[in-house]
């Protein structure tokens, strides 16, 4: 009787759908609970429990410690703020030029500007050292020209060195994220305002500024998060004098074995990150709402020289110089790494020495492994992490966009709300904190002792999931719900709709998300560096071990390989992006 009533009320299709959703929630819940929430709880425990008694005393003594306070205020908060402001000051004019002026190679330059950002941090750091370090190109040229002993730039152990590196690393974020802001401006609005007698300043203040501010804020918040949580750059350039919270936590946990201190700092960091991420999501949604329904954008002006008008010539020259400077600033370190890999580190060594060394076992004592094995580890970890990430992200998207529930009941289903909040927290958790959680929770288990590589991969998965999910979700959101409704009236089952409609239409997002996850795992440094043991190192770890050695040829070679793979990934993303425009 009951069963009949059930059958009458729920079609087989809805049953399949519910089954899939429940299964997805169980898998996601288990994954997040065991690898994120329980480890996070363990961190809380270390921060607030001493001798199995709850107490704030350790937490307070950690955060009121003057060294910690300096690292928090000066090296983390103020540093992130200053880095962000510099990025904005250079990035916003640059994005305006790219949005406003049309010239040969414009698209290529915009696309290439993204490359530094997708490069592994350790590679960026190496490039920075090769280009601007004490013995780096810029300083050598400076000394030769002016015949002096002094350096032009000093990046090691200086505050400005850290800021400089952060601006280099994050400038592309600002430029890429604010170009759409300028492009979304409707030129007709400005013309109308002008015809109504508004001055240029008033037009900027009342018409332009309100329309671009959300884009700028969301880009700035993102750069703030990245520089706030910066690890590799500060670990090496800061020389222990300057430490972000991320570096401080790492040192407390790994060097001082002060678990409760590290845990307390991790909590502070997590709170700040959560706040910023929530703000970011809010502003980002506002920019998307503003972009809706806008068809016409900013008209582009051709960048040109004129025979008569010297003002135009001056402007054009200025813009070209500015763009060349930005290009030099951004690409110099990358080219420097590749060129460095061919420069013999001493006389009598061939320029291909670095590449031959990849196959040798000469560096076992430093690397614990041959460079080739490190490369294989890197690729293997990245492939496995990508597959797991994609499966989990797809499940998240399915739960978040459970059309059946929301359509039939006209309200947001419970699972959707739950999962959407559950994934914000991992987004706001730094890679070191993720690794610490895993370490504290599982360090005494057999599986951790014997298969630390699994935890390295899982930490990569945790870091990649938010990126992959967002990419797939944005592709999914572009599917018109009516398409799925039509498909079901045409008799297609839930599974057939998924296979024939949803999956092909999400494919671009899945590919982009997959490649992103692959690139993230490829260059991940913070969590890997914390967890790594024995022979399970990656190229990033190898480079970091050799970065302080006198000869940069071998690390530059390893970095060049990472650059090539990353650029290839990036080119594929660009290619897919183009295909998408045609559909």
């Amino acid at each position, binding site marked *: 009787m009951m069963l009949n009533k059930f059958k009458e009320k729920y*079609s*087989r299709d809805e049953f399949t759908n519910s089954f899939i959703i429940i299964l997805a929630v169980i898998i996601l819940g288990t994954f997040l609970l065991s690898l994120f929430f329980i480890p996070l709880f363990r961190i809380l425990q270390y921060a607030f429990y001493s001798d199995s008694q709850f107490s704030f005393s350790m937490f307070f003594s950690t955060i009121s410690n003057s060294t910690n306070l300096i690292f928090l205020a000066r090296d983390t908060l103020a540093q992130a703020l200053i880095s962000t402001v510099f990025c904005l000051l250079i990035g916003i004019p640059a994005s305006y030029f790219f949005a406003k002026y049309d010239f040969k190679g414009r698209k290529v330059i915009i696309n290439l500007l993204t490359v530094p950002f997708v490069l592994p941090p350790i590679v960026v750091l190496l490039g920075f050292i090769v280009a601007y370090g004490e013995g780096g190109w810029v300083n050598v040229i400076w000394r030769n020209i002016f015949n002096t002993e002094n350096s032009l730039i000093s990046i090691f152990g200086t505050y400005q060195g850290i800021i400089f590196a952060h601006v280099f690393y994050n400038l592309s974020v600002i430029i890429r994220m604010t170009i759409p802001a300028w492009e979304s401006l409707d030129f007709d609005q400005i013309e109308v305002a002008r015809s109504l007698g508004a001055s240029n300043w008033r037009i900027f203040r009342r018409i332009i500024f309100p329309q671009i501010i959300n884009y700028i804020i969301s880009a700035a918040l993102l750069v703030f998060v990245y520089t706030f949580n910066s690890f590799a750059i500060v670990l090496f350039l800061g020389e222990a004098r300057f430490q972000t919270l991320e570096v401080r936590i790492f040192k407390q946990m790994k060097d001082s074995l002060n678990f409760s201190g590290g845990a307390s700092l991790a909590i502070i960091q997590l709170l700040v990150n959560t706040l910023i991420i929530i703000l970011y999501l809010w502003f980002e949604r506002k920019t998307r709402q503003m972009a809706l329904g806008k068809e016409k954008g900013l008209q582009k002006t051709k960048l040109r020289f004129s025979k008569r008008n010297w003002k135009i010539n001056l402007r054009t020259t200025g813009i070209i110089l500015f763009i060349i400077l930005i290009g030099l600033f951004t690409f110099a370190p990358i080219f420097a790494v590749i060129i460095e890999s061919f420069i013999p580190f001493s006389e009598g060594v061939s320029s291909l020495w670095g590449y031959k060394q990849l196959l040798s076992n000469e560096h076992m004592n430093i690397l614990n492994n041959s460079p080739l094995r490190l490369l294989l580890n890197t690729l293997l970890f990245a492939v496995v992490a990508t597959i797991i990430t994609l499966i989990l992200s797809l499940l998240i998207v399915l739960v978040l966009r459970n059309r059946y529930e929301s359509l039939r009941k006209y309200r947001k289903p419970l699972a959707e709300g739950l999962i959407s909040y559950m994934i914000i927290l991992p987004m706001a958790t730094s890679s070191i904190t993720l690794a610490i959680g895993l370490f504290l929770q599982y360090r005494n288990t057999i599986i951790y002792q014997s298969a630390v590589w699994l935890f390295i991969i899982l930490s990569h998965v945790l870091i990649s999931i938010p990126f992959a999910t967002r990419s797939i979700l944005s592709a999914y959101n572009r599917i018109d719900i009516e398409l799925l409704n*039509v498909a079901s009236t045409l*008799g*297609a089952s839930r599974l057939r709709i998924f296979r024939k409609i949803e999956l092909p239409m999400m494919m671009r997002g899945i590919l982009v998300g997959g490649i992103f996850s692959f690139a993230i795992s490829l260059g991940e440094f913070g969590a890997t560096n914390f967890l790594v043991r024995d022979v399970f190192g990656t190229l990033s770890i190898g480079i970091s071990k050799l970065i302080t050695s006198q000869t940069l040829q071998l690390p530059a070679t390893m970095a060049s390989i990472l650059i090539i793979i990353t650029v290839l990934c990036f080119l594929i993303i660009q290619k897919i992006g183009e295909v998408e425009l045609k559909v």
Partner: protein
Amino acid sequence: MVNLKLEDISMKYEKKYILENLNLDVEHGELLVLLGESGCGKTTLLKIVAGIIEPEKGKVLMDNSDVTHLSPQRRRIGYVPQAQVLFPHMTVKKNISFGLESQKLSKEEIEEKIQWISELAHLEELMERYPSEISGGQKQKVALARAMAIEPHLLLLDEPLSSIDAMGREELALTIRRIQKETETTALYVTHNQEEARLISDRVGIMYDGKIQQLGNVVDIDSSPHNYLIAKIMGTPNIWSVDFIEEESNATVLSTNLGKIKIPAKIQRKVTGINIPPTSFKISFKYNEISKEKDSFFVKGYIKSVIQIDEKTDRFVVEIVSNTIEYAKIDVEKTLITADISPNQEIFLNVDPLEIRIL
């Protein structure tokens, strides 16, 4: 071919009823147009019939069997939504065959049916194209063919012409009508545009406040709309709402934006508005020439434009002199137009109160 019966359908959205105890019968092979303004719940009703959403209360019956809780997959319904939603990654042919492939048919049968429907909808030339390569009107034809290919028991159309340019509209409307008639498919067609209803319908249901307010063929509704709002939805010219009513011994005085109108009779039913048919006006270009019969309704106005209706008749659009800006449409025999019409020409109008229709 089935008949569709909706019984006491209710649906709430954000605490407000958008459908409330709605009842409707659609007969075998009939094309019924649901006419109503945006947001009146037409689309929701269509989705309930399609099985995409479930009503809070009420029953959906097809040939007297209850399908209220049946999934869309098993209802065998052809659904053509508002925007031209084709599967963008499939060719026209693949789009049309999508529904057929969900049924257990042989390849030959599928090919046969595709052939049949593509000929019926004149789509043979487009079969290998992608949706991005065809026009809006063509897309909608494909959407229609896709829905019809499964030989649905019931065809549901949600404003199918709304995103099509004016040129393609009539042709598409007639294509829909032709295919529906040839296949004798029962159809429910939703729109806010009364002209579409006039072009295509067997019967029209006027919908607002979550209910079907009047049901019948276009001619019947035009000649006796139940109230002012229905007349408005039907696009009846020259209607004015009545603000209040004064009863006199042998007459009723109606207050409208045109002024007070005295009807020489007692009105027994509820009055919501008045309608003055465009042919009921008597005109004059000079004040002293107008007939001043006792109790006739008299106003002054200015001619704003003249439209030719046919060889014998012109239609004046006249701005009436009143407290608010009101326009009246007046059909005049050309022979009666004695003066040259100049812009803003003064005109005097006279209507016999007995010719005024009470809504």
